[in-house]
């Protein structure tokens, strides 16, 4: 290749990829980096960050905030609780999404687009509206609460508040993340070769066996993808426990919000964020690795 041709191709490459690259470096990568650096700093007097260098010229770098996270166990507990909620959400989403995805994958082709669209549409409605809807449903004066508490009263049990509880948080978490489990599952199930199941039936496998020994293992890449798409965002959510949760339902997202907007201890908030990011990246990495290596979903 002539040098001139090589140069003009390189120029075209940078002209096309340059602007988005620069933009994202500036408004995504650099802020992330700054946040990492901030985790090593001391909180300022009025919130935010202390000045980089104090009068004696000493650089403000320390591990105080990290130490605090690892020694004051309450933060680890919140983190574990968030992971627990995220895990429960993922499981319930999987149980609900699997039949739904299977149904869509088995429907006649012309209906599939519509069925999928119907699954996705709620996702495109405003997030807060979806949370608010559950506020209404689980409200103390609403039908559901009255029915449940009426039934409980019949057994002589104290009325149970549905709202501002772990139950409310979980229901809403599942509600908001369900589409993310359906889509990857569907994408995987759709590619399954019906001939495999027919062959298995031919060989005498029962319906359950066909599912458990053939369909489910082949769908695992979709399951992992969906699990990652549900677990990771759920881990970092804050609005749902903020609106629907009780005092015991604080998740790590709430803590981060608190640190940044109320307590204004930015270094500590950054530490919490970095721990969350590390967890998210680790999980995403595992999901990608599993998806690539164990991903022989095609016959």
């Amino acid at each position, binding site marked *: 290749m002539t040098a001139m041709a090589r140069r003009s191709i390189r120029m075209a490459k940078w002209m*096309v990829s340059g602007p988005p690259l620069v*933009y*994202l470096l500036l408004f995504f990568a650099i802020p992330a980096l700054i946040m990492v650096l901030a985790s090593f700093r001391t909180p300022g007097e009025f919130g935010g960050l202390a000045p980089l260098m104090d009068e004696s010229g000493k650089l403000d770098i320390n591990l105080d905030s990290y130490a605090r996270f690892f020694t004051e166990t309450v933060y680890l507990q919140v983190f574990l609780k968030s992971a627990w909620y995220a895990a429960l959400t993922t499981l319930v989403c999987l149980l609900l999404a699997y039949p739904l995805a299977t149904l869509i994958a088995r429907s006649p082709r012309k209906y599939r687009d519509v069925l999928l669209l119907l699954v996705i549409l709620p996702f*495109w409605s405003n997030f807060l509206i979806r949370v608010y809807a559950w506020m209404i*449903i689980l409200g103390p004066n609403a039908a559901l609460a009255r029915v449940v508490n009426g039934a409980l009263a019949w057994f002589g049990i104290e009325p149970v508040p549905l709202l501002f509880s772990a139950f409310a948080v979980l229901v809403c978490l599942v509600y908001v993340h369900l589409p993310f489990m359906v889509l990857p599952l569907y994408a995987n199930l759709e590619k399954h070769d019906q001939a495999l199941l027919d062959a298995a039936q031919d060989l005498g496998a029962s319906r359950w066996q066909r599912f458990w020994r053939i369909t489910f293992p082949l769908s695992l890449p979709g399951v992992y993808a969906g699990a990652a798409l549900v677990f990771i965002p759920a881990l970092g959510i804050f609005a749902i426990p903020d609106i629907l949760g009780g005092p015991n339902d604080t998740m790590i997202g709430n803590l981060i919000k608190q640190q940044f907007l109320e307590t204004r201890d930015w270094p500590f908030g950054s530490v919490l964020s970095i721990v969350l990011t590390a967890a998210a990246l680790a999980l995403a990495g595992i999901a990608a690795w599993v998806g690539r290596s164990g991903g022989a979903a095609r016959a």
Partner: protein
Amino acid sequence: MLSRSPWLWTTALAAYAFLYVPLLIVVVYSFNDSRLNAEWVGFTLDWYRKLATDDDMLAAAGNSLLIAVTASLASTVLGTMAGVAMHRYRLALLPVLVLSPIAIPEILMGVSLLIFFVLLNFTLGLVSVALAHIAFCIGFVAIVVRARLAGMDETLTEAARDCGASPGNAFRFVTLPLIMPGVIAGALMAFTLSIDDFVITFFTAGAGTVTLPLLIYSMIKISVTPEVNAVSTLLMLLTLLLIVIAAKLSPTLLRSERES
């Protein structure tokens, strides 16, 4: 082959009901002649009328629209470039940067941008929100555009050059028209994401700026009236319209299949 398993049908239908009933309740109660979202009293359009005269609401809606239009235009241009670049060139950095904002929890982008803007002494307001929205919308547009490009026949660009088109003309007359449905779908998606965004806006808006989701949030926390239902219903209708159009233009929004 339609499945005849009854439990499959019931669970699936239950899941659909689960998805839609809450939203329907919000819509239904927006017409409820009662301050409490507890039981049905009577039909009224009062809450919608209140919306029309609620200055705070209108201002917030205006802000949201302004930010959404700006963010979707900018992120569509940048996202299309990113999609083309990811498809044609094997840069390792670009996909990482473009796709990470989508993979990580939103709160992380929100707080890191908060620190970033404050450290730069950049006033938090409409502009900071718009800049933040563009950053996370680029990824969505890029994915849609790249999927569209992957489904396109590569030799067409060569054929265009062979017919005398410069690389720019080849893109303008052949590639762009063929990926245009994807570009538009990406733009509509970006618009919707921006209008609906809560978390990132929450951290980057600062004290004085209110967008629709932020207003809804404060109303939910402080004093809830069915006005919230009314504005939610309108927002849902708008989103519904935009996404249905986008889905018609680019079926790859729903799945990763190649288009015929």
